[in-house]
């Protein structure tokens, strides 16, 4: 990788970064009396371009998804290398795969559930007969689809579709990060896997599932080995924390867990972990030569959209500002 090749992309990204919604603007939106005022504050930002698509404020989701789509199109044009965008878009591809498979198995139409920002064009793929119809066009997808379909035929369990695809998603993401040779990407992916595994342990404890099931759903390639989570499954919380303290992501995990124990709301844990992901991407601000700023911008934009969704959903349901403020994620400023 020649880092100097990215300078054009980085400069253009920096221009775009200026248009990210600032902390002050977010604060204004949180304090806005209702959804109408949020939209008023949003006008003058990049979101205004999509106002024409909606006829009432309740359709805010259309604005958000249009913006997401626009960001990906723009970044695909700016980025000199596809893998940067693909690494960020992978989650949508796997989401679309899930929808596609469920659609095929249940024989219903879920067209509205596809998120059209992934690498693959699922509108096109949908039209083909699965899994053989893909012959030649996307061999990697074909392998995935065939494997999941076979698994469904044996177990008849829709949850396994998600679990299998989640595992493949993590594998794929890790491979992409490693082959990119960018340390920040590897760090990001590893942290993401750690957080997911940690969250999964807590969720499975709450759901009352057993350790065998946990072994099936934990992801590979994290900083913290799968076994550590498995061994700690029956430990009490303080012992679990003690075991994690020396891990690379241990600090974030303990912080998140403490927040969770205080309120017993998993959303608080998720917020802490999301914030930590932003901290990992922080160095991208000081890199001028390389793919990191482009990737960080995409994630920052996704974070912004998520924050807007939190604010809009909350405003729509008349939550008080203090409650919203607790949920809004840290931004990449």
């Amino acid at each position, binding site marked *: 990788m020649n880092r*100097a090749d990215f300078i*054009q*992309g*980085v*400069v*253009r990204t920096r*221009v775009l970064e200026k248009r990210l919604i600032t902390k002050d603007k977010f604060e204004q939106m949180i304090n806005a009396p209702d959804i109408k005022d949020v939209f008023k504050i949003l006008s003058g930002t990049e979101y205004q371009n999509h106002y024409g698509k909606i006829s009432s404020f309740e359709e805010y989701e259309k604005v958000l998804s249009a913006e997401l789509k626009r960001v990906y199109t723009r970044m695909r044009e700016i980025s000199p290398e596809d893998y940067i965008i693909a690494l960020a878009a992978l989650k949508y591809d796997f989401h679309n795969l899930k929808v596609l498979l469920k659609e095929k198995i249940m024989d219903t139409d879920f067209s509205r559930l596809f998120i059209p920002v992934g690498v693959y064009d699922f509108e096109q793929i949908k039209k083909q007969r699965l899994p053989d119809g893909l012959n030649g066009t996307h061999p990697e997808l074909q392998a995935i689809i065939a494997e999941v379909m076979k698994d469904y035929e044996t177990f008849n369990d829709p949850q396994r579709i998600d679990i299998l695809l989640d595992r493949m998603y993590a594998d794929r993401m890790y491979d992409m990060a490693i082959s990119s040779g960018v340390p920040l990407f590897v760090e990001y992916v590893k942290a993401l896997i750690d957080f997911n595994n940690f969250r999964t342990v807590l969720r499975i404890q709450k759901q009352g599932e057993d350790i065998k099931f946990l072994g099936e759903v934990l992801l590979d390639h994290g900083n913290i080995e799968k076994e550590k989570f498995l061994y700690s499954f029956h430990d009490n919380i303080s012992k679990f924390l003690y075991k994690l303290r020396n891990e690379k992501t241990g600090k974030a995990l303990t912080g998140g867990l403490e927040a969770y124990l205080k309120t017993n709301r998993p959303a608080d844990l998720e917020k802490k972990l999301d914030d930590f992901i932003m901290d990992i991407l922080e160095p991208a601000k000081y890199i*001028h*030569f390389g793919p990191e700023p482009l990737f960080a911008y995409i994630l920052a934009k996704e974070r912004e959209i998520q924050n807007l969704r939190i604010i809009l959903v909350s405003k729509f349901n008349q939550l008080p500002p203090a409650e919203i403020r607790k949920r809004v994620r840290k931004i990449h400023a």
Partner: protein
Amino acid sequence: MNIAEIFSNYGGITFGALGAALAVLMSGIGSSRGLGIVGEAASALMIDEPEKFGRSLVLQLIPGSQGLYGFVIGLLAMLQLSPAMELSHGLYVFMSCLPIAFVGWKSAIFQSKVCAAGITLLAKNEPQVTKAIIFAVMVETYALLAFVISLILLNTVQF
């Protein structure tokens, strides 16, 4: 004529010319490379914010100075050339050219990176761009030192 004779007869002018050529060549390569990198960055900026052309031009020109230094040294070295030069004189000219040749080459590229980073600063926070120019000029110091040494070396010893 054996090798030794060729060497003593023509060595002087050959080395002198080689020095002059190297000074222009290497610092020229460095500068053009540097200008290229910054130019790429600047043209990316022009897509979205063409009104920043003036300031990005300043940033782009900074790594260009090394090429100029190399050119001046090359010119001065050229003035000392004569067909009857002694080998020692030729070698001396050659050596005098080396500082600017190497420092000019590398410093131009390093400087261009600072300038490209400056372009990103220009993109994001325009009022602070003067600072980026100062940072870039810092790198210039060493190119300048090399230039000065080359200049003094060329003029101190009279053959």
